[in-house]
């Protein structure tokens, strides 16, 4: 016999008891057979029940046995109150699931170290200060020649790795007609060996692949892309594809665990940095610099060394620069170089979403606490109903901890059921939220493993939840004094105080959730209702590329062809669509003065672009076919005001001053209304629309490699024409192909993706919090009326008025609600500065923003309180007195 048999015996308790019983019976039967008197034999045997218990205890693991008994008992309790148990489990499941889901997202994006050797030694270099656009900011992009100097200087202390921003690029494996998108990233050849990444197939890059510009047209695929695109075909090695102007050969597939250093994007294709056109340019910043420290090297001296090199490099580059204002020059040279830890990699999504996810995490935590308070109140009310049972248990010798264990086991059972359903919810909801993050043509992809980290979090959360809602009621229930129960109940007010405290907490958290949700919803509303200055109606955007570059006259032919298609109303061209998020800027010089500190923003457009976008012309004329760059331009009102202090600027000219010192004289032929250019959140930019036609020095038309055709369709759904137009573009000229089709509306909506996500989720959790708090309030009020039925009956018999009764019922609760609301308000105002960067044109102190949670909670309180008050008023004093 062993521990194992004692564990097994726990689960066959009844059989065990029967066997012991049988053994006893055999003993007595044998005694009788030997001629003893049955009465005497039984007496001599002693107290059978006690002996049986002793034997039972010897044959089982004691604590496990009591646990099993508690589980069975707890399960029966839960089953007895089916509706309340179900409500409690559902609300807890939702809250636990939401918290786990939030943790999965935060962990995957912000906490999980990269699967590389020694992620703790990774740092990222950035510059902080005033940028070329005269605005303060932090910039983590670098120029390659400077990177080479820094890498040489850091030798021995650290390895520097260049990693370009993953780009959704056009690649073709066969003909240009079968162009597809892939996330492409230029990386230093020594990245794989430095990170300790092994090939899954073929070979990875080494330093030798990254020595001379353009010398190594090789590509490494990520495991994910290899599986998705090629079905893990081992023959992929040696295949080639076109990207840009080059042909690349696939040499290997990287290890499965490594998906790049940008959480939120899974890289498909890696290419050596030396294949990037910017690799010899000192004025082109296009990649991040990751520092891998050698063990035992101090960070600060290295940072100072790299900062000195950067400073010297920039000073040298910008010396004698005539295209920048002296002030900008001074500011840019004063930029600080930062070296920050980056064990989790570095990505734009991290920067965009860390606040947002943090805020969501706090919201779901609040919902969890509200749910816990609810269940705690439920358990307290049940404990009151079970006071007699507890008193009985104490009287027959149950120890206090035994009772605590019994109630806690019941709580744990509840939490466990909730956690299991919550896990299902988290399993579904985390990928769902990720899918909402980016526009459909460039989905965010986050590795969301359900591993020991998530499991550990879930278990810890469940334990905490059990303690949160179970411990207090358990301690209260176990502290029961049999004497006071016999006297007719202990002090009912202490229990009420506990429940009212819980209500105050719930209201405070609920207020906070509603307040923050209100801020997010208002932000989203303001941003999406903000006029952009142009119309998106029926606009289809065909992002088109040509290889090699084509003369803009050819591009015009394509536009003409599209215009002739049925279902097409208008076609215009632009270098890119408005609100695509890209820009082209330069300084402006007026009357031969110095270059401006403020930058102007440029864009090539075709004649008729204003009409297609429905941007009104204020004065002057539109561009004409005969206009050539830079002789005729259209500026917006902000430009006119900012650089010329005037609205009537038609006929005046300004000079565009480039970094390289060149100046181009531009004649203003028209002024247009302001319209958003790059993003809806930033202040209105001074914008210049310039013609596509650009004569070179020798008199031939300049060539263009990318344009966007902006098509106004006749049908309400512009995407209906997408497939046809895509084919037509290539029909005109086989060198042209559409790389991406979307609508202007999609682009506009993509501007507020984060705000929409926050508003939707915050609204959802606000509703859940309100519902839970309302249910909690209803439960407590109902309970207290039930407890005080006798008292109320007597009062009414003695002539109390209906409103007096209602006031009495509501008195305690009102105070709790008021305290909770004030606490919630204080919490809200204190926390608002952490989310300020997520808000748009909305202040925490706006009357409307404050009114939303106040009114909603008031309404919820009234609705939740009504049934209890009605019940109190309907109490029949005669019936009450008769019961007694």
């Amino acid at each position: 016999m062993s521990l194992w048999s004692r564990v097994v015996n726990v689960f066959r308790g009844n059989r065990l008891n029967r066997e012991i019983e049988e053994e006893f019976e055999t003993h007595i039967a044998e005694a009788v057979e030997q001629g003893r008197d049955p009465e005497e034999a039984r007496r001599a045997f002693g107290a059978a029940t006690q002996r049986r218990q002793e034997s039972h205890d010897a044959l089982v693991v004691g604590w496990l046995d009591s646990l099993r008994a508690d589980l069975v008992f707890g399960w029966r309790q839960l089953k007895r109150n089916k509706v309340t148990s179900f409500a409690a489990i559902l609300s807890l499941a939702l809250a636990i699931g939401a918290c786990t889901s939030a943790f999965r997202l935060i962990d995957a994006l912000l906490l999980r170290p990269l699967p590389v050797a020694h992620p703790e030694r990774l740092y990222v270099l950035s510059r902080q200060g005033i940028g070329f656009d005269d605005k303060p900011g932090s910039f983590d992009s670098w120029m390659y020649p400077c990177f080479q100097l820094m890498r040489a200087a850091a030798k021995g202390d650290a390895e520097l790795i260049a990693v370009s921003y993953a780009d959704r690029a056009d690649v073709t494996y066969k003909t240009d007609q079968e162009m597809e998108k892939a996330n492409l990233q230029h990386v230093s050849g020594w990245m794989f060996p430095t990170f300790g990444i092994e090939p899954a197939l073929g070979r990875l890059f080494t330093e030798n692949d990254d020595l001379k510009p353009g010398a190594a047209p090789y590509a490494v695929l990520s495991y994910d892309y290899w599986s998705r695109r090629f079905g893990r075909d081992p023959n992929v090695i040696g295949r080639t594809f076109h990207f840009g102007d080059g042909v690349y050969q696939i040499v290997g597939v990287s290890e499965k665990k490594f998906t790049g250093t940008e959480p939120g994007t899974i890289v498909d294709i890696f290419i050596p940095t030396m294949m990037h056109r910017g690799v010899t340019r000192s004025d082109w910043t296009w990649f991040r610099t990751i520092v891998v420290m050698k063990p035992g090297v101090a960070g600060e001296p290295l940072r100072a060394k790299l900062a000195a090199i950067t400073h010297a490099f920039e000073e040298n580059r910008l010396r004698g620069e005539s295209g920048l204002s002296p002030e900008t020059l001074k500011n840019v040279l004063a930029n600080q170089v930062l070296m920050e830890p980056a064990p989790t990699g570095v990505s734009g999504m991290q920067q965009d979403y860390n606040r947002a996810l943090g805020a969501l995490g706090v919201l779901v935590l609040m919902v969890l606490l509200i749910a816990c308070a609810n269940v705690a109140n439920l358990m307290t009310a049940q404990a009151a109903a079970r006071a007699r049972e507890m008193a009985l248990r104490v009287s027959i010798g149950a120890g206090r901890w035994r009772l605590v264990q019994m109630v806690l086991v019941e709580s744990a059972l509840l939490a466990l059921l909730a956690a299991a359903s919550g896990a299902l919810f988290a399993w579904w909801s985390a990928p769902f939220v990720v899918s909402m993050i980016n526009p459909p043509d460039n989905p965010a992809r986050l590795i969301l493993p359900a591993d020991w980290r998530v499991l550990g979090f879930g278990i810890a959360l469940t334990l905490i939840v059990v303690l949160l809602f179970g411990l207090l009621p358990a301690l209260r229930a176990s502290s029961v004094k049999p004497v006071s129960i016999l006297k007719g109940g202990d002090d009912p007010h202490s229990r009420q105080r506990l429940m009212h405290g819980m209500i105050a907490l719930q209201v405070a958290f609920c207020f906070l959730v509603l307040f923050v949700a209100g801020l997010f919803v208002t932000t989203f509303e303001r941003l999406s209702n903000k006029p952009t200055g142009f119309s998106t109606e029926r606009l289809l955007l065909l992002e088109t590329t040509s290889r090699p570059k084509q003369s803009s006259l050819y591009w015009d032919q394509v536009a003409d062809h599209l215009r002739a298609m049925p279902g097409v109303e208008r076609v215009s061209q632009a270098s890119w669509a408005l609100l695509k998020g890209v820009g082209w800027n330069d300084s402006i010089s007026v009357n031969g003065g110095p270059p401006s500190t403020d930058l102007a923003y440029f864009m090539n457009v075709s004649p008729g672009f204003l009409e297609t976008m429905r941007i009104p012309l204020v004065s002057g004329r539109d561009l004409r076919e005969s206009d050539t760059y830079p002789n005729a331009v259209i500026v917006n009102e902000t430009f006119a005001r900012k650089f010329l202090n005037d609205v009537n600027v038609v006929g005046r000219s300004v000079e565009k001053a480039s970094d390289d010192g060149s100046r181009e004289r531009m004649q203003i032929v028209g002024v247009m209304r302001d319209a958003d250019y790059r993003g809806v959140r930033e202040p209105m930019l001074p914008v210049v629309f310039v013609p596509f036609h650009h004569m070179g020095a020798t008199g031939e038309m300049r060539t263009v490699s990318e344009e966007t055709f902006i098509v106004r369709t006749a049908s309400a759904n512009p995407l209906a024409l997408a497939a046809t137009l895509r084919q037509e573009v290539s029909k005109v000229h086989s060198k042209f192909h559409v790389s991406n089709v979307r609508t202007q509306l999609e682009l506009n909506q993509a501007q507020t993706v984060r705000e929409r996500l926050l508003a939707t989720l915050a609204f959802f959790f606000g509703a859940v919090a309100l519902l839970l708090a309302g249910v909690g309030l209803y439960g407590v009020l109902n309970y207290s009326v039930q407890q005080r039925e006798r008292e109320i009956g007597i009062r009414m018999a003695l002539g109390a008025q209906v409103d007096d009764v209602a006031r009495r019922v509501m008195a305690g609760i009102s105070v709790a609600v008021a305290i909770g609301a004030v606490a919630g308000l204080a919490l809200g105002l204190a926390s608002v500065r952490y989310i300020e960067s997520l808000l748009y044109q909305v202040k925490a102190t706006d009357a409307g923003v404050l009114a939303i949670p106040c009114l909603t909670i008031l309404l919820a309180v009234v609705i939740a309180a009504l049934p209890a008050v009605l019940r109190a008023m309907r109490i029949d004093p005669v019936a009450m007195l008769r019961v007694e």
Partner: protein
Amino acid sequence: MSAISEMSEDVLRAEEGSLYPALHRMEEAGWILAEWVTKDTGRRARVYELTAAGRKQLAAVESRWETVTSAVNRILRTV
């Protein structure tokens, strides 16, 4: 049990039922092995048998008992 009281000439007396918890504890300790057998009467009974470990334990406990009692006896004689 009756054997105990007879052999000790009624000095040691115990409830017969208390034998079983003791047996069960010894069984859990692995000193004895139990088996259900069916008697001629059709009734099932549990038969216990000393194991090797049980024999060892018995020897150990017996020798400890001897040591203690002889020590006590020696003390009683000298006083």
